[in-house]
């Protein structure tokens, strides 16, 4: 279980409060008006933003003071998910060892992951030689080898076309099922939430609310969400 225990997060002049918990293995969409603090919430869980008070716990373990790389968290950002000077295989390999010293078994795992996301044979390509969708797949292959308990998505597919975005979300959903990861994804699109998330966290007016069942919330939106959905 991921628990945000009476947390206050300050980002610039803006403060977000969150007091909620997410069960292990859940798939949760984070929605709300832009500027409401969706990314702030995700970045605090990932460890990029310090908490002014409260704690972040995973399975009862306190993560609050841990560096981002020492948390059981894998994250995909809006952009810059790959190093442009490294090959696809190297980018994936970083998920196993940040120094890229990989054993034979680890090399094999990298190849397996690339095959799993449909990029067999593209291991020596650099990101510039891959399409946008393929770049997303490389990042997902890395998430796969990282095998972290929590997967955070900060709209990594926003630049893709609608069909490709759906395809990627389905792949994410499959991978999360295979690895049993707990998924939190920021989304602008209620359709995405309905598609792969069974629960939704509404972020509005300086607070992240406890998760609620997706269909229920979207069908009977509270005023803040209603204003956003239109």
């Amino acid at each position, binding site marked *: 279980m991921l628990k945000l225990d009476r947390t206050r997060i300050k980002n610039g002049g803006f403060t977000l409060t969150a007091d909620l918990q997410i069960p292990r293995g859940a798939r949760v969409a984070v929605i709300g008006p832009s500027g409401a603090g969706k990314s702030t919430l995700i970045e605090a869980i*990932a460890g990029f933003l310090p908490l002014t008070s409260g704690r972040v716990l995973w399975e009862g373990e306190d993560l609050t003071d841990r560096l981002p*790389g020492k948390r059981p968290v894998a994250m995909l950002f809006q952009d810059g998910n790959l190093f442009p000077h490294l090959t696809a295989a190297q980018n994936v390999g970083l998920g196993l060892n940040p120094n890229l010293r990989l054993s034979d078994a680890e090399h094999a795992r990298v190849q397996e992951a690339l095959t799993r996301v449909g990029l067999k044979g593209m291991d020596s390509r650099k990101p510039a030689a891959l399409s946008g969708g393929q770049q997303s797949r490389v990042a997902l292959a890395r998430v796969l080898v990282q095998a972290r308990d929590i997967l955070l998505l900060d709209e990594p597919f926003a630049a893709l076309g609608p069909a490709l975005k759906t395809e990627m979300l389905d792949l994410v959903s499959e991978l999360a099922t295979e690895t049993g990861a707990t998924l939190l994804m920021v989304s602008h699109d209620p359709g995405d939430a309905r598609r792969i998330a069974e629960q939704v966290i509404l972020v509005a007016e300086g607070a992240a609310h406890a998760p609620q069942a997706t269909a229920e919330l979207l069908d009977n939106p509270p005023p803040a969400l209603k204003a956003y959905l239109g």
Partner: protein
Amino acid sequence: MARRAQPLSPAAGYGAAALVAALILGTLAAVAFNAETGRGLSAADWAAVRFTLIQASLSALFSVALAVPVARSLARRRFKGRSVLITLLGAPFILPVIVAILGLLAVFGRAGWVSEALALFGLEPLSIYGLHGVVLAHVFFNLPLATRLILQGWQEIPAERFRLAAQLGAGPRAMWQLLEAPMLARVVPGALAVVFAICLSSFAVALTLGGGPRATTIELAIFQAFSFDFDLGRAALLSGLQLVLTALAATLALRTPVGEGFGSGLDRMLRRWDGQNTFAQSLDTFWIVFAGLFLLLPLLAVVLSGLPGVLSLPATVWSAAFASVLVASASTLILLALALPMALAAAQGRPLPMEIAGLLGLAASPLVIGTGLFILIYPVASPFALALPVTALVNAVMALPFALRILVPACRDVVARHRKLALTLDMRGWPFLRRVVLPRLRAQIGFAAGLAAALSMGDLGVIALFADPEVATLPLQVYRLMGAYQMQAAAGAALLLLVLSMGAFWILDRGGRWHAEA
């Protein structure tokens, strides 16, 4: 978790900044404690102060006054080779001073090309020793710099303004009043201040073309107090004086943002509608040809006069060349070891200490640091034995401000772009440095290393203080050959020095960009 997590510890940067500050402030303290104030300044000292100020003012005035029409011509003309010419304007920055002086002598000297041409008309030959020689050499070095600074001003005028002016049918007078005069009023004071500050600490030019009671700069006087009288107290006093002047000039120069002064970005295309008549076109052609010849003729002269001698160079030249390559390599490594950690710490949100350490390097002149180091080393070891390591170290510190200017923006960019991804992957410290920073910064590191190597290779400053007759770097050897009137050997050695400096820059700069991708 008070601070945001960063992939690299700033400790190495702090360490490097502290080392630089300790070196500069330590030598300055040594200078201050040893300065002999009792005697006060002699008449000769005052003459040196006066000459320093006069030559720096004249050099700044002439450089900028000539740079305005040249920059104007370059701003409004497009021709084949324009971008090459603009790149060449950056070359004097890494050109060894002694090489340029030999070239200037070959063109403007007593037996030079211009004098020979004058003799055809029965006119007296030129002499470029003394004030006008010093100013000529300074204009040679700083006209290109001033041109680049002013050209930048011209190119910062938005294209829409030129379009509007053309639409209004503005003639040359109106263009001047509307666009050019206000821009120049903004840019020219900065260019003047920069050139003035650079010429203030001129040593090698004054050493070769000046001298005597009427053409001695303070830096040269420091050197003479050392090598002729071995009067450390007086050298320290003069160093103190020099320090005050450079610090004042540096603050003046730093008030105005300068941009890079070298590097690229000045060949943007811009459509212009004014200055299409024949008079304006021939005027611009004149200025571009003038600047091109003024820059290229001395270099051509170095090559032509050096070629006959380069194959029969004396062994002392080759050993000096070897020493220079060693010094330049060591200096480049020292520079990178200082500049990279400082740039990375600055990029991760701790710019102030790094900037201060970098500025110290600008304010203190090499001869002042050299004097201080000499005073510090003298009681414990023979400074002459340490001539080459000291030269490498001082050269590195002198190149530091430029290296930081090149590296800090690039580091900031890399950290901003890859910080979060690296942190989620737990790439911190060495893995981040090796897998992200070094590959991403190759081009900038190569450029900075190339500048450092070329500057060190061509430097004739500190080495003159520390060298005994047995030891010499190549620039010093060229100077000694000139002093011994072995002009053929000097010309050959100068050509070798030119090739080594430019070659070092080219190899490192190219090496950084080799197979580098986006």
